[in-house]
């Protein structure tokens, strides 16, 4: 199994406002504090490569304290020059959120060339509140996503210049310099929470599917749907097309791990993902079929999740190295996921670095039967 180190780069803080997104005033953001955190977070990602992680992940969110990376490509650029081996996975760029998505094709190509072909390019729609922060019409979200993805992939693969004439994006000359180093183009991943339409779209194109912050039962169900769709498109999914993103807390024994997790993991769900109801599902952002499925299941909002919900639901992995190994075996052996994208959180920078060392020493080596395999060969393009 491959291990990718995922960072949200949160601005961890407590507050009483109804939303950590869109309307949480940026007066709460202290740039001096932010500076220190950015450097700690980047140090953690760089250290992860030294410890043996296969990939380093950044992502895009806007106007919130949950994740302070409005431009993931900026963070990727910082990592590219400070690392030499690990994949740099941008998970991902919010395609519909860009007024000019040809800029994404250019930026990813730049990163790919400088990194010597280590870039993985996630394509996402962005979550609900993003449509409020950037004022993009959510009823256009899906169509803009497909159209921008088509544009970017054509820009990477077709000899320019050529014209592109879409509903939302139109160019007389598509001809980006540089072209990406990887052939035919950097692998594309689809981080998602399991909408039927995205599963189909990704499976058809062999784009790896990444389940983000989802309970394990639902992961199993969506993996099943994805594999079945791949079969329908005439091929069998590689294990490196099935990826999961979930937080891991490991410590020398279970009791210690639980203590650390109780203190640090809930924040992401209870505070980081707190938002006003209208922000969750902006109008037209999901299809009516998806909406009805959400309404029928009525999942608990993140703010109401308790530690026991996270533990029992398999949203997180917590325990001693032996316990964590057993829980990861469910992903590697039963769900047959090929890549685990996880951030670790020890509560402070130093403790996080220690936790990373423990994980690299006691957990990672037990899953290294595929150490020689390039997980990006033949998938994502």
């Amino acid at each position, binding site marked *: 199994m491959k291990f990718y180190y995922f960072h949200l780069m949160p601005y961890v803080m407590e507050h009483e406002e109804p939303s950590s997104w869109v309307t949480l005033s940026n007066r709460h953001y202290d740039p001096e504090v932010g500076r220190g955190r950015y450097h700690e977070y980047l140090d953690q990602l760089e250290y992860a490569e030294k410890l043996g992680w296969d990939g380093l992940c950044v992502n895009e969110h806007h106007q919130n304290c949950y994740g302070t990376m409005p431009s993931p490509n900026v963070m990727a650029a910082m990592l590219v020059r400070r690392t030499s081996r690990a994949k740099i996975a941008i998970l991902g760029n919010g395609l519909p959120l860009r007024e000019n998505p040809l800029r994404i094709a250019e930026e990813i190509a730049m990163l790919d060339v400088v990194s010597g072909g280590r870039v993985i390019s996630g394509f996402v729609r962005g979550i609900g509140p993003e449509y*409020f922060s950037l*004022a993009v*019409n959510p009823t256009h979200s899906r169509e803009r996503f497909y159209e921008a993805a088509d544009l970017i992939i054509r820009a990477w693969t077709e000899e320019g210049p050529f014209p592109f004439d879409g509903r939302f994006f139109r160019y007389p000359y598509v001809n980006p310099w540089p072209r990406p180093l990887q052939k035919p183009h950097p692998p594309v991943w689809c981080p998602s929470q399991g909408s039927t339409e995205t599963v189909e779209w990704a499976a058809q194109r062999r784009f790896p599917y990444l389940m983000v912050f989802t309970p394990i039962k639902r992961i199993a169900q969506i993996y099943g749907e994805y594999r079945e769709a791949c079969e329908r498109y005439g091929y069998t999914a590689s294990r490196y097309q099935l990826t999961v993103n979930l937080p891991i807390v490991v410590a020398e024994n279970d009791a210690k791990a639980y203590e650390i997790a109780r203190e640090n993991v809930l924040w992401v769900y209870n505070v980081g993902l707190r938002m006003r109801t209208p922000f969750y599902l902006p109008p037209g952002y999901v299809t009516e079929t998806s909406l009805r499925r959400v*309404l029928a299941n009525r999942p608990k909002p993140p703010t109401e999740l308790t530690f026991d919900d996270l533990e029992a639901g398999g949203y997180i992995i917590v325990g001693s190295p032996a316990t964590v190994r057993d829980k990861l075996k469910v992903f590697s052996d039963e769900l047959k996921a090929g890549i685990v994208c996880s951030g670790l959180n020890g509560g402070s920078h130093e403790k996080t670095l220690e936790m990373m060392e423990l994980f690299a020493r006691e957990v990672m080596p037990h899953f290294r039967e595929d150490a020689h395999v390039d997980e990006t060969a033949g998938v994502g393009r």
Partner: protein
Amino acid sequence: MRGTPVHLLSDGTGPALLFLHGAGAAGRWLPFQEQLAQHFTVYAPSHPGHGGAPAVEWIEHISDLAFHYLDLLDELGLDRVHLAGASLGGWIGAEIAVMASQRLSSLVLIDPVGIKVNGWIYPFLFGMELPQLISTVFHHPEAALALAPKDQSIDTLAELYRQNAALARVAWNPHLYNPLLRRRLPRITAPTLLCWGEHDQVSPLLCADAWAKEIPGAQLVTFRESGHAPHLEEPEAVAAAVIAFCLRQKSAP
């Protein structure tokens, strides 16, 4: 109609009056329409996607709704009508009027949105939870009860989501206006009445002044106990003003 289903409520006798509802008021026959129906044949269609009417893919701009209603007038064989529209319906009414003023015996706009007014930014309604939305739209919050959904079933919630999406398609960004509309308003030749709630917090009296300035000869009447929806908060007074104004204009035979 041209492949687009139309949900239409109609009652009354007399000259034809097309009533275009505001967001959230589709498919309801309220005291305001009932009073108009004493003097007019009232046609009250639901905008596509609103109030249970099916959403329509081709409607992606406010002018599409204006063409949709011009098609409806053709379909109903109505050469000229009185047109009254509230809020979003007023915006659509104004779009119709700049295209085809000759088909309107009169134009009544009740707290319309739709134009850019210097010094005012329409509050972002899509970001509001229900209590805030009600206190923004209504001066007397109890008036909102007339528009309460019938239940909280999945069907009802899906219908509300569809309605919100239909509104978002035409009004997310720019929020609640068409940048081209204001400069076209001087084209309106139909006699025009502007009805305005004095406590409107969506499109306040500042906006009324801009509308009155742009539409030649427009009259403005204000309602003291109303916010953004005077026809719901003071239906008798607004209906009386509308009826008196329209009856003074020459109707189609």
